[in-house]
């Protein structure tokens, strides 16, 4: 068999609307910097924006790097061998894959993108995407520390996250085909190198040297980073604006009843865009203010699954219909699960 040609990965094109929106975003950001550079609000915004980006940046880089290696070294057959053949079992296993691939929510999107391109079943990919950042051992440890080694809180977070991830994974398999849920990957038509489910594979052929494969993996990682890194930046920008301008006391003021508190903390989780490894500390800081555990848990379970930057990053993988479905299902599931938790505490 002839050796596979090493072709560069193709970068995806931005849609016309997307292009205008991104140009508008750039112009707004530059004008904001030009006219408000000396105000304390702008400096506060700049610090928070930079901090969110700097914290997420290495994970994004590592995620795309890992994605590049998955692309080149892991064949479709090898990937599918990890998961059981039966769909429901595959979803269940995928929800726990975060233990083997301990990536946070910023890094998981490029990894899932590669897994999907490699042929991972849709429901399993969604279960990994949603459950991965919660079952991550580092996130588990940070929850333990934030709650002064309250093991029940840490396990409850993992349990709720995994159950919701599995549920939505199964529902996705039932409601969507790959074509309905996933964006067409540009490499399929233009690259021809097989990096996105094309006809040949990198990992299984073994016909090229390791050095060539590493080079290809790095090129793919860099191209992926360039392609989806902007979603992280735009998400961080919006989150920083919200953190700068919206007083957190306002959330506390509206969060009087437990069910409104759950909703308020869910809104806060989406708005703050915190790393899943840090969010437990913020959730725990609401404890002395009388915030119910169910609301704190809603914050910790929803945050790693859905926030502004993640929604924007999902644009690089899923169709808008699928993103809307995911956002709705995640919000609904988290709310219902936490309302159940609240009522269980009453009983």
């Amino acid at each position, binding site marked *: 068999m002839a050796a596979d040609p090493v072709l*560069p990965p193709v*970068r995806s*094109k*931005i849609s016309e609307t997307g*292009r205008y929106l*991104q140009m508008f*975003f*750039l112009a707004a950001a*530059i004008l904001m*910097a030009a006219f408000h*550079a000396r105000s*304390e609000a*702008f*400096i*506060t*915004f*700049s*610090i*928070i*924006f*930079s*901090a*969110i*980006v*700097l*914290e997420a*940046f*290495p994970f994004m*880089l*590592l995620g795309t*790097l890992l994605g590049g290696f998955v692309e080149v070294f892991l064949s479709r057959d090898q990937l599918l061998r990890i998961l059981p053949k039966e769909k429901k079992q595959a979803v269940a296993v995928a929800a726990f894959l975060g233990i083997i691939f301990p990536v946070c929510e910023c890094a998981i999107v490029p990894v899932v993108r590669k897994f999907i391109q490699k042929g991972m079943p849709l429901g399993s990919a969604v279960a990994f995407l949603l459950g991965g950042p919660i079952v991550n051992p580092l996130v588990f440890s940070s929850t333990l520390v934030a709650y002064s080694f309250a093991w029940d809180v840490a396990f409850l977070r993992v349990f709720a996250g995994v159950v919701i991830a599995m549920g939505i994974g199964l529902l996705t398999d039932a409601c969507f085909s790959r074509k309905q849920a996933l964006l067409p990957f540009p490499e399929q038509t233009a690259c021809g190198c097989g990096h996105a489910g094309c006809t040949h594979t990198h990992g299984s052929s073994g016909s090229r040297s390791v050095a060539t494969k590493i*080079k290809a993996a*790095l*090129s793919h*990682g*860099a*191209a992926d*980073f*360039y*392609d989806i890194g*902007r979603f992280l*930046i735009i998400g961080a920008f919006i989150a*920083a604006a919200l*953190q*700068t301008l*919206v*007083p*957190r*006391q306002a959330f*506390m003021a509206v969060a009087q009843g437990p069910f409104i508190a759950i909703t308020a903390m869910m809104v806060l989780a989406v708005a703050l*865009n*915190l*790393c899943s490894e*840090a969010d437990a*500390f*913020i959730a725990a*800081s609401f404890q*002395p*203010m*009388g915030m119910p555990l169910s609301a704190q848990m809603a914050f910790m379970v929803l945050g790693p699954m859905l926030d502004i930057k993640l929604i924007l990053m999902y644009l690089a993988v899923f169709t808008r219909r699928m993103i809307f479905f995911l956002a709705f299902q995640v919000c609904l599931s988290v709310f219902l699960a936490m309302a159940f938790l609240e009522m269980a505490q009453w009983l």
Partner: protein
Amino acid sequence: MAVKRISGPLVALAVWFIALAWLLREDRYQLFLAPEFGFLIYISLVVCAVFCISLLAEPPVSGKDQLIKGMILILPIVFMGAAGDNTLGSFALSKRPVATMVQKNSDTPLVQDLDAKTLSEPGKDDIQEISIARLVRNWDQYNGRHIRVEGLFSKTIEGHDHLAAVFRYFITCCVADAMPVGVFLASPEDMDLADNDWVRITGRVIMKQLDGYDIIFMETPEIEKTDQPAKSAAYIYD
């Protein structure tokens, strides 16, 4: 003579590499991240370098889309420069509840109902100079004692014009998760102090309630202006 086209991804990653190296110089990253997370900057630096090297051999990619992607990617670097050597100050305080790290106690009186008889002169002999971090972590040891703490000054508190605060921020991972901690006091009327000045205050600390939340309140404090101790002194790294 034909000009060789430059690859957008290569330029963006190279700019990030330089920015990350700049952040590591003099530990400037500590204005955004907790010191123990410096390794994250090193990871970014290494991966950026590796990606740059891998792209050197790639054919250049350019075009309108590539330009937009690249400009968005390097946008945070502009804002990092705009932030300069500043830290979060009283503006951020106005958007966050001050944490006391003690459990709520509904028996404590409201700040608005302060009884003049409870105010007393500080006992000069047993004043302890402590950090705000130590105060909030060991509140039981200092409840009712005379202490001296140092921090950023805020002339007023959102919704409470008669209250001022001396505060710092607890940081867990990065400045985005900053949690203000500090001491409240009655707004000094005759002091030439501005928001975000560094001050040292001395007085007796007690627990009060403000809008249903516990706060640490300093009675009849002596206030003196000081120099900023260090570039990132506003932050307490947990």
